[in-house]
């Protein structure tokens, strides 16, 4: 056991010294996270434009404006644009002039929101939040009207209630409650998991490098069983992955103000996610013949899983086969775990995603370990 820790410590120190793991596991993702969060929080997306179509029930118009939109405008969360008819509003949504439009009918509200492309996750979040909020307003008003409280006084009362409710206007809160994690955190977690699959290769793949340089043979000539060497190298992958994820989460939280939810839940997710990533590199080391081939294969694994898993943009939204494939990736389940942990959920909310990640680690890692055991030879 001690010798496993000796080898593990020796390797972790070596990777720190040659800075390879630091660059791939920390510097590169931090830089990208910083750049991407700067882009998504640029000035024109700070206020989400909402379109409103004039007409329909005056009571509803009034309730919508005074009760829902005005407070958000005052808070600087949204801007409101007026459109003469539904056609014009729909065009504005499609053109991207506004993120959502609210149509006021005679007996209710209709919300159109566009499916904005990659990068404006924040806008979608705000639009959806507004839409849902407006829907709620609509339902309250409709209900009150049906109950006969559709007088001006009734409308004023509803509007007053909404104004006093503090939770409806803060974008952070709205985002957390309605559409899962905020955009910055989404970017940070997506990139952190993406780079994780590159970071873990610095552990197990060193088996192949050390076989080439001859140090593996020398280590195996010592009183060390091959499985102990394998365990140490897998341990190195795991430790490097863990260090990288922890550093990225803490840095993005302190510097960029990302929100990650319950720390215990996040820690569990990270442990299981790193285990899943480590399992892929064990399999790659077991199959590849040269370190170069293994490095290339692991990059492909990282790229394909990252794209499918929604590290860059959500494949679940695309529907069809990709919605199925994305559920086969650790990246998806890590993100899913974070979504479930939002809104003050307890750590148990992350249990199902953690179990899926563990299942992935077992399915890939067990055959991976058997195959990688063969790589432990002079």
């Amino acid at each position, binding site marked *: 056991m001690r*010798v496993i820790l*000796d*080898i593990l410590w020796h390797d972790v120190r070596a990777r720190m010294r040659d800075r390879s793991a630091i660059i791939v596991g920390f510097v590169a993702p931090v830089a990208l996270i910083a750049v991407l969060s700067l882009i998504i929080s640029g000035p024109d997306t700070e206020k989400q434009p909402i379109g409103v179509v004039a007409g329909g029930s005056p009571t509803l118009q009034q309730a919508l404006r005074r009760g829902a939109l005005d407070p958000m405008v005052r808070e600087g969360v949204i801007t409101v644009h007026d459109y003469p008819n539904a056609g014009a509003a729909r065009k504005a949504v499609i053109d991207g002039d506004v993120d959502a439009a609210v149509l006021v009918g005679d007996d209710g509200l209709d919300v159109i929101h566009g499916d904005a492309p990659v990068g404006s996750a924040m806008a979608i979040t705000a639009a959806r939040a507004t839409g849902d909020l407006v829907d709620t307003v609509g339902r309250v008003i409709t209900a009150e009207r049906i109950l006969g409280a559709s007088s001006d006084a009734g409308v004023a009362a509803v509007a007053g209630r909404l104004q006093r409710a503090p939770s409806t206007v803060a974008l952070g809160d709205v985002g957390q409650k309605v559409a899962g994690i905020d955009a910055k955190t989404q970017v940070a977690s997506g990139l952190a998991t993406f780079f994780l699959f590159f970071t873990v290769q610095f552990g197990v793949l060193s088996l192949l490098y050390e076989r080439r340089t001859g140090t593996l*043979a020398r280590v*195996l*000539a010592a*009183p060390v069983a091959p499985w102990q060497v394998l365990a140490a190298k897998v341990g190195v992958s795991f430790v490097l992955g863990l260090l990288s994820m922890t550093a990225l989460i803490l840095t993005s939280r302190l510097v960029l103000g990302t929100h990650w939810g319950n720390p215990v839940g996040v820690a569990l997710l990270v442990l299981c996610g790193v285990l899943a990533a480590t399992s892929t590199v064990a399999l790659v080391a077991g199959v590849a013949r040269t370190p170069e081939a293994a490095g290339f294969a692991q990059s492909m694994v990282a790229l394909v899983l990252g794209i499918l898993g929604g590290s860059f943009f959500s494949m679940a939204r695309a529907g069809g086969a990709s919605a199925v494939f994305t559920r086969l990736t650790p990246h998806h389940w890590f993100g899913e775990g974070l979504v479930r942990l939002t809104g003050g959920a307890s750590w148990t909310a992350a249990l199902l995603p953690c179990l899926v990640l563990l299942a992935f680690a077992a399915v890939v890692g067990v055959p991976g370990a058997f195959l990688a055991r063969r790589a432990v030879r*002079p």
Partner: protein
Amino acid sequence: MPIATDVLDIALRVEGLKKSFGANVAVDDVWFRIAKGETFGLLGPNGAGKTTTISMICGLIAADAGTVDVYGTRIAAGSPRGRRLIGYVPQELAIYPDLSGRDNLRFFGRLYGLRGAEAERRIDEVLDVVALRDRAGDRSEEYSGGMKRRLNIAAGMLHEPRLLILDEPTVGIDPQSRNAILDAVAALGDAGLSVLYTTHYMEEAERLCDRLAIMDGGKIKATGTRRELVSMVGKHDVVNLTVSRAARAAAEGLRALPGVRSATAQDDRTVSVLADGAAALLPDIIGTFAGTPIHVQGVEVLEPSLDAVFLHLTGTALRD
């Protein structure tokens, strides 16, 4: 030569080792023993099977057949049993270039359970043996080739093994480093350590080894002390001829001469001839080239030596 009476007086017992890589038989039924305190040389050209034999002795690769016992402990591939008894200095350098010499030794020491003050004491000792103490703090990639080799050796003897195995430890280094290494190995041998030393340098084998085995094509051709081996060649002498050209053709012609055991072209202009009684045959040897475009430019008659033995046993010179 110490005579082994007890199992524990035998440092290494190799019996019937075999190893093939596909159709290539690298080691073919190899037997030998090394007595406690003995320095034993395994002498053979490139591809003879020396490294493969050593890999099996160290339990790095599994033998197709045969057994290895070190001080009575059976060595098996994949099992750490008995490894502590062996110090292994691989032919390829096995050191971490980004670590200092001292940190390399610390790491290898830990693999053998050496740590703390005990480790530091041993590290200082072996650094003195290989004369690297003053450079121990430098990264080993900044070492010269000879210094790297010496560090490689230090790593092998750090844990005070009872059998030290050195696989061509002097390949490709300057004469000064080479002498330092040979002196260190000789000192260890004198101090009673059992040593298995492979080389294709005849001088090294003659200088260091109590007994030798000559290996070629995966087989042990002969085993014995230098004197025993040389007496096998008997009255045969080695004559080295320097010719003006076409050494291969010259060798061809010489083989037909009665009394010539073998004739081999060593390079374009050197032919080694193994002959019964060189003095008598010399006129005939030179006469062979009369009327040919080949001129003999130099003749050298060698004392019976391991070179002659090697030529006699394998038909080729050791260094090809």
